[in-house]
């Protein structure tokens, strides 16, 4: 509208201004002319606030307080409240509340609700599978535990059987078979590494008479007594086995002839110094020991079968023991391994005797 003087009417200026407020990228300021129009300032402020609010909403910011009034403001507030509630609902869903449903936003709501339902179903299925897996894991753990326990029992049992297979049940010393295995390994290592070693045989003096006098149970005690005290004075590398009856066999590792005799003497002396108690009275036990030295320097021993070498050494020690018995008992007798191993069964012609007085003479072995 144009006035008769060619100027624009107030109505057209207002309409143009409002149009620019609604459409222009940069909102126009209120001119002095429009400022004078009653209510125009309120319209300007209202529309500016509306622009700011819509700009915030376009950017996803719904926190700006709405101070406007009226239906338009009411609609915006409802939209803002719905979006804030939607944000809250999503946080609830994230926390596991799948009962949340969106009831506004039209098609978005049904898609969103469908997504929540599917998410709930998928998670429920996952939880079910997790529970199944947990249950299976527990069953497996139980099974493994059971098997582990059974395996442990088996190991204990095996260890027990191995011990019983390797040891003499009366004394706990190695039995003859396992001692011989140990001795073969020791002799072999000794020969290969050039280390001296000695083998010794021990026999309890007058054991038959002891047995006859005090009975077999006391005889068994005497054998245990000799084992206990004999074993106490061995070095860590030495080994003691029960050869049979009242006879014991030793390997003194890393010992030349003198050291072997010294080791045997420690055994003999400690047994002699610790009497056994029989019928509440101390009874002195003595032993005789034959020692043989296996010299690693002897070249002729290098090719000899280890079992044959052990056999020869044992026979030589037996001969030395025999000499000790013949010579009065309670003594250690030494002899070197014979030059010719084929004659080891023959008594040696020269033996060295380490002797003490015999405690019980003329009463058998």
């Amino acid at each position, binding site marked *: 509208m144009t006035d008769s003087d060619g100027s624009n009417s107030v109505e057209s200026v207002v309409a143009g201004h409002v149009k620019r407020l609604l459409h222009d990228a940069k909102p126009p300021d209120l001119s002095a002319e429009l400022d004078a129009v009653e209510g125009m300032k309120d319209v300007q402020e209202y529309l500016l606030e509306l622009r700011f609010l819509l700009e915030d909403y376009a950017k996803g910011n719904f926190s700006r307080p709405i101070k406007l009034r009226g239906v338009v403001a009411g609609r915006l*507030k409802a939209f803002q409240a719905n979006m*804030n509630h939607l944000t809250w609902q999503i946080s609830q869903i994230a926390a596991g509340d799948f009962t949340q449903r969106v009831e506004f936003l039209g098609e978005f709501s049904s898609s969103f609700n469908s997504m929540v339902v599917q998410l709930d179903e998928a998670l429920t299925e996952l939880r079910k599978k997790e529970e199944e897996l947990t249950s299976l894991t527990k069953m497996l753990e139980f099974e493994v535990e059971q098997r582990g326990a059974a395996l442990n029992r088996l190991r204990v049992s095996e260890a027990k059987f191995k011990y019983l297979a390797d040891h003499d049940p009366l004394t706990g010393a190695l039995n003859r078979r396992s001692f011989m295995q140990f001795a073969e390994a020791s002799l072999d290592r000794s020969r290969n590494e050039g280390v001296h070693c000695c083998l010794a045989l021990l026999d309890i003096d007058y054991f038959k008479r002891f047995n006859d006098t005090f009975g077999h149970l006391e005889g068994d005690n005497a054998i245990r007594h000799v084992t206990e005290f004999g074993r106490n004075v061995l070095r860590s590398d030495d080994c003691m086995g029960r050869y049979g009856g009242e006879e014991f066999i030793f390997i003194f590792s890393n010992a030349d002839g003198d050291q072997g005799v010294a080791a045997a003497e420690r055994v003999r002396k400690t047994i002699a110094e610790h009497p056994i108690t029989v019928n509440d009275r101390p009874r002195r036990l003595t032993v005789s020991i034959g020692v043989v030295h296996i010299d690693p320097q002897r070249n002729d021993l290098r090719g000899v079968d280890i079992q044959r070498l052990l056999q020869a050494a044992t026979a030589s020690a037996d001969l030395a023991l025999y000499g000790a018995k013949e010579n009065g008992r309670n003594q250690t007798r030494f002899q070197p391994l014979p030059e010719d191993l084929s004659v080891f069964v023959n008594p040696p012609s020269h033996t060295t005797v380490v002797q003490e007085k015999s405690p019980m003479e003329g009463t058998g072995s």
Partner: protein
Amino acid sequence: MDGNRKYKFSWDVIGADMADARPSLGDSTLVAVYRLLQFTMRDVIEQRYGTEVTDELFRAAGVVAGKAFFEKFCSEAKTLQELTRQVQEKFRELGIGIVRFEITDAEKNYFQLTVDEDLDCSGLPDSSDQICIYDEGFIKGILDSFTGFDFKVNEVDCWCSGARTCRFNAQVAG
């Protein structure tokens, strides 16, 4: 006074079996009838005691109602999540309003929610007054019962858009 009171509230005093009590009319009535009672009460009390006392009395009545509501409908709620769900469901089921939570901060004990299609105020003419005083008390009664704290609830936004919607802030008093 407590022992001689005539109107001490409990669910029993308002009648339980409406099928027996109102076999023809049932247990529902018009929103206008509910408001007729409430707004005439406001009118009379305001005339006699002033606006401030009227608001105070309505808020206090709302607290009693909120606590009774919690005891009857929400006392099984063990978590905040369960409480919000039960409040939303019961408000809708009983036609009180559509509750939409916007903030539920259990650590700070701070809540913000809106009530749409509110039984007390939806459809009232637009005015500058915050008139959902009874609702403030009602929400306080529920939150006090659930948390054991003393909440202060304010209606911070109330607007007319046909379905008048109200926004409330709730936080521990003091």
